[in-house]
């Protein structure tokens, strides 16, 4: 639909600008807060223009003692923990759901559809619902305070399995038949043909899952007691309460800013594949 009347043009732009402001303003404030010193951040009104302390704040947050008066892990370690967790979750989810979708679409085994629906039902069981039994299992397996404990309970993914199933269903049957005539076995077909064909879908899913993993809050909070295993997202919340004095907004906001960088980097670097993967249907 093409609208050309001045009023509707104004209206659409107005709505868009409001949306941009609603999203961008908090980020701007975070950025501004990260560029002032502690003193200025505790005065009213809040500054709306950047100050000159960004470099110092960054240095103190990343490599200095961080938040003064607490026993937090250094921020670089928390970033690393978050990165490890997000990578494990996203690659693990993709690997497992690719294989299970492959099994469901291309193999005829008894109770195939039962398996599919069982996977599908797990959509109703996110980690928050099954938190006690899952914690019990992870604790018994001795995986508390480890990367495995952080990631494995979150790895099974019905959404991703379902998505790959749909992707595989769009691959023409002749592709499989032609590979069979060429002498490719099932795994060879999977790696040589299916994987390259679902490349963009994998990338799109990776972006979504990486952010999902990066933003995990409740589960890391439960199973990490050792400060050397804390992730950046949960630590931001703790920073607010941890200090005995008033919150050090400049450091907290710098941490928040740092926590935003990896997801933003992933989104921007994979943007093209991401859009292709979610929109293109032609194989």
């Amino acid at each position: 639909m093409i609208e050309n009347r001045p009023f509707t043009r104004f209206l659409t732009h107005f709505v868009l600008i409001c949306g941009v402001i609603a999203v961008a303003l908090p980020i701007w404030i975070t950025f501004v807060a990260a560029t002032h010193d502690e003193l200025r951040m505790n005065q009213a009104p809040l500054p709306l223009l950047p100050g000159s302390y960004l470099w110092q704040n960054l240095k103190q947050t990343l490599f200095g003692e961080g938040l003064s008066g607490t026993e937090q892990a250094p921020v670089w370690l928390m970033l690393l923990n978050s990165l490890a967790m997000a990578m494990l979750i996203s690659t693990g989810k993709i690997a497992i759901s690719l294989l299970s979708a492959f099994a469901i679409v291309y193999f005829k085994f008894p109770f195939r559809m039962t398996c599919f629906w069982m996977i599908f039902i797990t959509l109703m069981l996110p980690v928050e619902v099954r938190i006690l039994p899952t914690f019990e299992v992870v604790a018994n397996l001795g995986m508390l305070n480890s990367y495995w404990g952080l990631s494995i309970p979150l790895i099974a993914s019905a959404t991703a399995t379902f998505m790959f199933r749909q992707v595989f269903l769009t691959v023409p049957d002749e592709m499989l038949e032609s590979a069979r005539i060429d002498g490719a076995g099932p795994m060879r077909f999977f790696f040589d043909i299916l994987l390259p064909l679902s490349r963009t879908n994998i990338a799109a899913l990776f972006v979504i899952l990486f952010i999902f993993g990066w933003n995990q809050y409740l589960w890391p909070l439960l199973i990490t007691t050792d400060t050397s295993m804390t992730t950046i997202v949960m630590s931001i919340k703790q920073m607010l309460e941890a200090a005995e004095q008033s919150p050090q907004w400049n450091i907290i906001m710098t941490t928040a800013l740092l926590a935003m960088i990896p997801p933003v980097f992933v989104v921007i670097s994979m943007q093209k594949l991401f859009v292709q993967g979610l929109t293109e249907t032609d194989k």
Partner: protein
Amino acid sequence: MAEIHLTDLTKSYGPTEVLHHIEGHIQDGEFIVIVGPSGCGKSTLLRMVAGLETVSSGEIRIGERRVNELEPSERDIAMVFQNYALYPHMSVRANMAYGLKIRKLSQAEINRRVEEAADILEIRQYLDRKPRQLSGGQRQRVAMGRAIVRDPQVFLFDEPLSNLDAKLRVQMRLEIRKLQQRLGVTSIYVTHDQVEAMTLGDRLMVLNGGYVEQFGTPIELYDRPASIFVAGFIGSPAMNFLPAEVKDGSVVLSNGVIIPVESPKEANVTLGIRPEHLQPEPEGAIALQVEMVEQLGANTLLHGTLQGTDKALTASVAGHATYENGEFVNFSAPASMLHLFDPETESRLEL
């Protein structure tokens, strides 16, 4: 290069039998076309030979080997699919080389074969392109190249030309025929297009409803169709069928016209006559009331009905001719060009 024997071959999906007792013996180097309307089981039969469908009963032999239980890759066949089934993420070269790579041929041998096939098909300049950068005809060549490099005993074609436009189809049809004659590989080709079937095949297997209606050379099928189905399917425009009666050594049409034939039997029959065998003759016994005239340039088609009946009748007259709608045109039909069929069994009655 090999002979193919199909012995008492059937295919069932659950309780439904879709192919019934197919028999066929294909000579070494022969080009066989399986032709029939959609849903007749022709693709299923081809896919059974390829090993993509299981065999319910009967036997398929390629050369000396029984191949019923063999994987497609072990049958020494190559197949060209209707939508080409090229791997979209691989270059033309990689597409053609993929099967050879899996068979662990040396890189030098793979290159030699791919380039040789590319030269035969004149696609050498496209070797490094992706399939989506090629036109339909070029993709078709790549698909054939992929079959050629395997150097198989049998080529299988599953309606390979149906995605091409009409002009290209005619051109590729000739190329496939030339290529097959040059390579001398036994080939089975599936199509629903009877013109394609007639021009390509050494022999045609006409399938209908899972039964082989007739298996013979194009000329045999044209001259002596074994059933009403084959008679109507082969030849364009389609053969005319008129209800008639054999009486006293001649055929009597429903409007009383008598055509003498040498037949001792007396029975109700279906008389078949091809439009091109109706010869215009002022004194001819068969009168056609023209309803529509189709000018094709080289010949003219007259569509109408047999005088005094509502039976559709089509005649083909050489050259340009002008006729008025509603006009009566008289034709004669030589007895040797008539086909008689049993209206019950629809099979051919010998004169």
